[in-house]
Every structure is written in C-alpha cells, then in structure tokens.
C-alpha cells in the first residue's frame, strides 16, 4: 500500500536528541537489522535492494540495486562512498538526516558494504557542515568501539572500515567523479565517463557512490523486505521521499512524504499554503538544476518518472517551435532531482531569481570545460543586466543560445544544470523577461 502522509522511515528519529548516541539508537531498534544483514549472502542483499525499487536520492534517481550490480564480479577491492556533499540550492535534507540519525547512515553503509564486499569505505562530507561532521565522527567512533566497524565485525569475520572525510568548499564535489578526485586529494574536477566509478573509481578500484538518504533506506529495506518498500512508493519508485520545501510557503521544512504526493498537496496541505494571500507562480521541483514548473503543472506527483514524462508538464524549449532534445527523441520536462522544492509566489521577480541561480553556477563551475566555464559566466552577466533593467533587446535569444551551447557539451552535468533551468524559465516565464526588456525600451 502506498505510504500515507505521516509515514516516517528515515526521519523517524528527528527531534530525539538521545537517538544520536549508539545507546539511544539501539534503544529505538537500531543495529537490529545489521545482524540479519551480515548473515545474508551479499548477492541476496543486492537482490532485495533491486526488488525495493530504491532509487538514488541525490539527484539522478538511478536504481540503487542496478548500480550495485555494475561492480565486476571478480573485483578484488571495492569501495563504498557516501556522498554527503549536499550543496544543491534548495536542498537541506541530508544535513538534517546526518544530524538526527547518524547511526542509521552507518548501519546502512555497513549493510551495503557487505553487499558490495567493500572493506575501506568513506563518507565524503561537505566542508561547511562542521556540526554534522562532529556528530558523524562521534557516531563512527562509537560504532568502532562497539565492534560494528573494524577487522572482524560482530565476530562474523567480515571486515568493514569507515572514514569520515571532510571536503573544503566546492559544489562540484557532489558530482561523483569530482568527489572521488577530491577524496584522492586532488582538485575536485570531474572525470570523463566511461569508465564509470562502479568499474574504475576510487584509487582505480570499483566504487559505488550513494547519497545519504539512499543508504539510510537500506536497513529498512532489509528489515521489512524489498516488496514492502516498493509498495510504499509509486510506479517504479519505492519508498518515501524526503523533500525540503523552502521559499514562499507558510511552513517551510524537511518533510518525509509519500512518493505520489502532488506539488499542490505538498504546498497547501503540508506546508500551509503561500503567505499573505498570494498564489504560486513557479515551483523548482528538485534543486535549482531542474527546470521549473508553472502554476498549471502542480498536480503532478513528485515521483521520479512522473516529473520526466508526465505530459501535463510542458517541454523545455530552445526557441519557439523547437523542443530541447535530451537525445533519443526525448523531450526535457523536469526531474525530481535532490528533493529541494522552492516555491516562488506571484510577486517574485523571476529574472532576478534566475540571475541568482546563474550566479551560483558561474561561481561553482570547476573551469575544466570551456562551454561551462565561459558559458555560465556569460549567463550570469546577461541575466544580471536583464534583471536590473539594462538588458539588450535580443538578450532572451542570447541567453537561450548560450544555454543551448553549454548543454550536453561538457564532461559532467554541471553545464546542463545551469542550462536546463535557464531554458526552462525562458520557456515558461518568457513574459517576465520581456517585461524587463520592455521597460528598457520605454526608458
């Protein structure tokens, strides 16, 4: 049965300060599943996770079990790396998840590492998350002391190590190959793929990189079964979804919600609606990398496939009459991304909001690929002059053309992440940009 509003899996310990300690975690049922998991054969764990339809909660929504299956069978050394570099604007769930329930992440990592036969494993945590780093490090220390981590965990003969590795400020390190380079002590610049990390990752060994929320779901799946988890979800997406609702709502927050909840329900039933009697103008559905929804598109569920394929969502256009081509004849609608839902009310200055998003990408481009390094800078400059009322008459076309020139032409997805929202806002809120340029002409 699909989860109801109020179902709590990974947020069940939110608000309970005592559950952060190992004793508190065990008291609330923690580490009970681990013994069961360690007694399972690794391939059976992977099969259970596949059956659960758990999909990556970091942004791409790829099937976790399928990803694990990409590790070559004859691999000698494998690593599991948790991506805790949360920095997608509008997204604030992993930080809260790690703060409130660090041991659930550790338990999930140990069980997942067993499935992957991974011995030396890492949590790459964003450098600016200093409070969460201390919480995690303390929890890891406790887990070592109690024998949940070490050379022979719980007397099973299984070796599992976990190291918390701090970053030092770089959004790009949330991209998995940049993260691996950073973990190896290099500049955080993405690698060319293939080879994918599951084949050749950290120190040249097969490596699985999973998001915090993704890994925290694993103990629940192994406890109650993949079928149970799958049924909680919707379509090919199992489980619940932790969303972070911010911007113009009465009650912003981090909420664990049913996969099938619509944006209208989320905004009005969960978050108390829009303040001051205003209405919704736009919603960013999954962090600023994702094209926005307009007010007519909010009855779509926040589920991964729905956001990519639901025909109620208008396709992103490159220019009038030309849809953006994702390859293989697929149009780009939007994506569920990282769960960062940003609500913009009807008085929002859309061009200014877009400029702020472009400023972010220009700041965070790693500089490796020319289309992104130069293009994000141009997007920032041109969107700024449009926003402040000094744009040129053809700036809308210019912005679209720059964005189109970046998309698909870079090593990693940061270029697309800048281009997609630019094109998406121009497609759905063109009148707002035109109004800014009209003012220039009138003046």
């Amino acid at each position, binding site marked *: 049965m699909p989860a109801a509003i109020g179902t709590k899996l990974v947020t069940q310990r939110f608000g309970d300060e005592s559950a952060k300690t190992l004793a508190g975690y065990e008291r609330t049922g923690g580490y009970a599943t681990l013994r069961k998991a360690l007694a399972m054969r690794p391939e059976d764990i992977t099969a259970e996770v596949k059956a659960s339809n758990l999909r990556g909660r970091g942004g791409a929504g790829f099937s976790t079990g399928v990803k694990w299956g990409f590790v070559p069978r004859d691999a000698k050394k494998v690593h599991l790396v948790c991506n805790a570099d949360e920095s997608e604007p509008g*997204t604030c769930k992993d930080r809260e998840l790690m703060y409130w329930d660090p041991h659930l992440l550790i338990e999930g990592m140990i069980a997942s590492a067993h499935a992957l036969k991974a011995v030396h494993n890492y949590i790459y945590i964003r450098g600016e998350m200093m409070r969460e780093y201390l919480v995690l490090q303390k929890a890891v220390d406790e887990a070592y002391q109690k024998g949940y981590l070490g050379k022979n965990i719980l007397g099973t003969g299984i070796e599992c190590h976990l190291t918390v590795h701090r970053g*030092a400020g770089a959004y790009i390190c949330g991209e998995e190959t940049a993260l691996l380079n950073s973990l190896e002590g290099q500049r*955080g610049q993405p690698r060319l793929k293939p080879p994918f990390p599951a084949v050749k990752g950290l120190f040249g060994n097969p490596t699985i990189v999973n998001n915090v929320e993704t890994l925290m779901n694993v103990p629940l799946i192994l406890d109650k079964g993949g079928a149970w988890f799958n049924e909680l979800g919707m379509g090919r997406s199992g489980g619940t979804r932790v969303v972070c609702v911010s911007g113009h709502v009465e009650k912003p927050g981090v909420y664990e919600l049913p996969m099938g909840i619509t944006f209208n329900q989320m905004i009005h039933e969960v978050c108390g609606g829009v303040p001051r009697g205003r209405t919704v103008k736009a919603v960013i559905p999954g962090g600023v990398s994702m094209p926005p929804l307009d007010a007519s598109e909010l009855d779509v569920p926040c589920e991964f496939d729905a956001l990519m394929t639901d025909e109620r969502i208008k396709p992103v256009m490159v220019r009038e009459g030309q849809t953006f081509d994702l390859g293989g004849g697929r149009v780009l609608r939007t994506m569920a991304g990282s769960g960062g839902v940003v609500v913009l009310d009807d008085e929002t200055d859309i061009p200014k909001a877009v400029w702020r998003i472009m400023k972010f990408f220009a700041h965070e481009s790693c500089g490796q690929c020319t289309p992104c390094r130069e293009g994000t800078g141009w997007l920032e400059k041109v969107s700024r002059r449009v926003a402040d009322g000094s744009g040129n008459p053809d700036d809308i076309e210019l912005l679209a053309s720059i964005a189109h020139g970046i998309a698909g032409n870079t090593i990693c997805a940061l270029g697309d992440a800048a281009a997609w929202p630019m094109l998406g806002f121009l497609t759905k809120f063109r009148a707002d940009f035109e109004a800014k340029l009209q003012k220039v002409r009138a003046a």
Partner: protein
Amino acid sequence: MSLEFSAGAQKQIAALCERYPDSPTKQPVVLAALHLAQKEHGQLSDDALRLVARTLELPYAHVYGVATFYTMFRRQPGGTNTIRVCTNISCMLRRGYEVLAAFENQLGLKAGQSNKDFTLIEEECIAACANAPCAVVGTKYYLDITPDKVPQIIAELKAKPHPESEVV
C-alpha cells in the same frame, strides 16, 4: 620561513594516513592537512603549503593547486569567526540580501573582507533552506534570521566565538 606542525597535528596526520591503505601515496590526506595548516598558521601562506607538501611527500605545485581550488582555504589572514551568510535562492526569497547588508553595516566589512574578529562571506547554499535566511559560523547555525537580529548575533559571537578551526 620554515613552518612546522604541532605534535598533535603530526599525530593526527599520521593517523589519517592509515585510513587510505589502497592509496599508493599520502595524497588523500591533503585536504585534512590543509585544514590543519590553516588552523595552526592562520592562513595557507606559501610556507604553509610547503609544510603540507613536505609532510605528505607531495609536489608543492600539487598542494598549491588543491589549496587554491576549494573556497574554505584562504591565502590571507582571516578573523576569529567566519560568518557564512547564504544569499542563494531560498534565502534570497526571504530577505537574505537584507540580512547580508545588515552584517556588512554592523561589521563595517564588505562580503569577502576580514577584521581581527570576523571574516564575512557571502556563501552559496548552506543546506538550511527550510530556515532561510540562514548563516553558519563554525558549528553554530543561525536560522530564520531577520536583519534586526544581526546585532545580537554579532554580540554573541564576540562574547563566545565559534572558530571553524574548532572542528579540525
């Protein structure tokens, strides 16, 4: 001038080197060593970078490249507290720029500048969007900030600083 790590830092680095047994070099420890060098020497001067390079047996050029890539590393001195004020989309929609301006006015600093007590940074999203506008100072988060709360925050930090080096 040749710089050194304290005995405590040397011990920390040696312990960290054990955590990456599949790495052929000590390179994975470079971020941690740079955090430590910045803590002990206040900034990552050329000499501090040489210290990290020597300690980890890495080329100076590599360490320089890494140190200049990440925004938390600084090549000049900073204040005791680093105030990272978010102005990204969720904060901007809820008066984040007014909060940043209040910090600038109260501190007499522009974003990016430092005095003895404070470094003020206009930060990209710090993952506290549900409590926008927000700022982080070391391990301390300031949530749901309004411009009128800023003098109080600054007074608190003067009385009880939260240096980032506390967690290193």
